């Protein structure tokens, strides 16, 4: 397990953009069902997965996120009819571009979670946190002037 300067076990910081209508409610359900998911998953509520601008994802990385996940309603179930379909195309292209620029591809993910899927929410977050822990700290999308370069 990667260790940071203080010698403590590395805990990845994860930002989860969750759609107000499904995934945010799914997260809520996970909580009220007493399901465990890592505390360092920071949930950000958005009105629709389509609201997630590529800049949000980059900003999250800039401010220290090690992984970013976007959760929305299942395709076909969007509260606004089609927002998640557009988001799906955008994220596929954006993630592919990040991969092309050499950002480890495991750090980004999209998952469709409905309001009834509290267990899926918790599982997804646990798995994602595991993947990110294995990848370690995100160095490639932060200010690397101050960091020893180790590609």
């Amino acid at each position, binding site marked *: 397990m990667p260790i940071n300067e203080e010698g403590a076990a590395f805990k990845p910081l994860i930002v989860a953009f969750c759609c107000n209508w499904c995934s945010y409610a799914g997260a809520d359900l996970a909580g009220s069902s007493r399901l465990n998911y890592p505390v360092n998953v920071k949930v950000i509520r958005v009105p629709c997965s389509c609201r997630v601008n590529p800049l949000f994802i980059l900003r999250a990385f800039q401010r220290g996120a090690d992984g970013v996940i976007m959760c929305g309603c299942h395709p076909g179930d969007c509260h606004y009819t089609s927002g998640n*379909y557009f988001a799906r195309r955008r994220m596929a*292209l954006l993630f592919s571009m990040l991969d092309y620029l050499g950002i480890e591809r495991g750090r980004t993910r999209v998952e469709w979670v409905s309001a009834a899927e509290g267990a899926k929410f918790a599982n997804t977050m646990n798995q994602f946190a595991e993947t990110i822990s294995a990848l370690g700290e995100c160095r490639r999308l932060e200010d690397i002037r101050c960091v020893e370069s180790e590609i």
Partner: protein
Amino acid sequence: MRRVRDMMRSRAGELLKDGAVTRVLGWKSGEFYYDPTPSFFDTEESLDELVYNGFSAAMLSKYLIEATKKEGRVLVFLKPCDTYSFNHLLKEHKVDREKTYVIGVGCGGMLDIEKLRALGVKGIESMEELGENLVIHTLYGDKKFARGDVLLEKCATCKGLEHKASDELAVPDELWEWETSDRFARVSELEGMTSGERFAFWRGELSRCIRCNACRNACPVCSCNKCVFDNPRSGVIAKANADTFEENMFHIIRAFHVAGRCTDCGECSRVCPQNIPLHLLNRKFIKDINAFYGEYQSGESVDGKSPLTEFRTGDVEPGIVHERGGA
């Protein structure tokens, strides 16, 4: 190319004379021989200054945004690749078709001054373009080249010599044509590298960026009235990138904003003073769009929606990026 120029001058003269157009948008010689500059011509006499040669690479379509806001009709000369950008601007209602008159001009491939410089060319005084042969008269004597060796990247990988929009053509019969290469070859090469190698490659390229914004300003697609990079509260308005994140961010967002709309005109890479291969970012998006959502080239026609403004219920999931294997 001289024949094309003569055809351009005479047709423009006729159209100006009978009042069909009020202004002509073409190229005029710039400070140096190798930089013909976009310019407007209002009178028949001024057309003597109209130039068209292997250095007339600057795309004129974008100038129509402002030009068509004025009274009168503009005659514009468009090379085949410029017509893609023209169509794109029509599609987004940035240019009024009624106020334009398009003469599609024949193209023999535009020359890359950087390649010529690397081959020791300086002090260019004039040039003879004889099909595949190029004779450049310089202050230090004549130099001969095979045209195919000194083409711009965008021309070596040209999308085709057909004009996708025009009211009439000025294309002489026996214009030189050349073998083009696959425009996605370099993208595929990069895709074949490991993630770490790609990261190192892009650091090397993007860290040279001086945020002059030339790539944005020259781009026909980057024609937003308000650009995200001009927003004083965005934290990225500074001319120079403050850190490596900003370099990445600027380039990812610029390329993302033109994804599905980029006409692959090559202007961004051509104007970049730091020679950053921006086309490799744009073409990555085009290649992915082709693979994920079916072949699409922005600017081929005015009709239809661009890939990011439509969807299919059976589209691929973003997870495809993780599943496709490779390093």
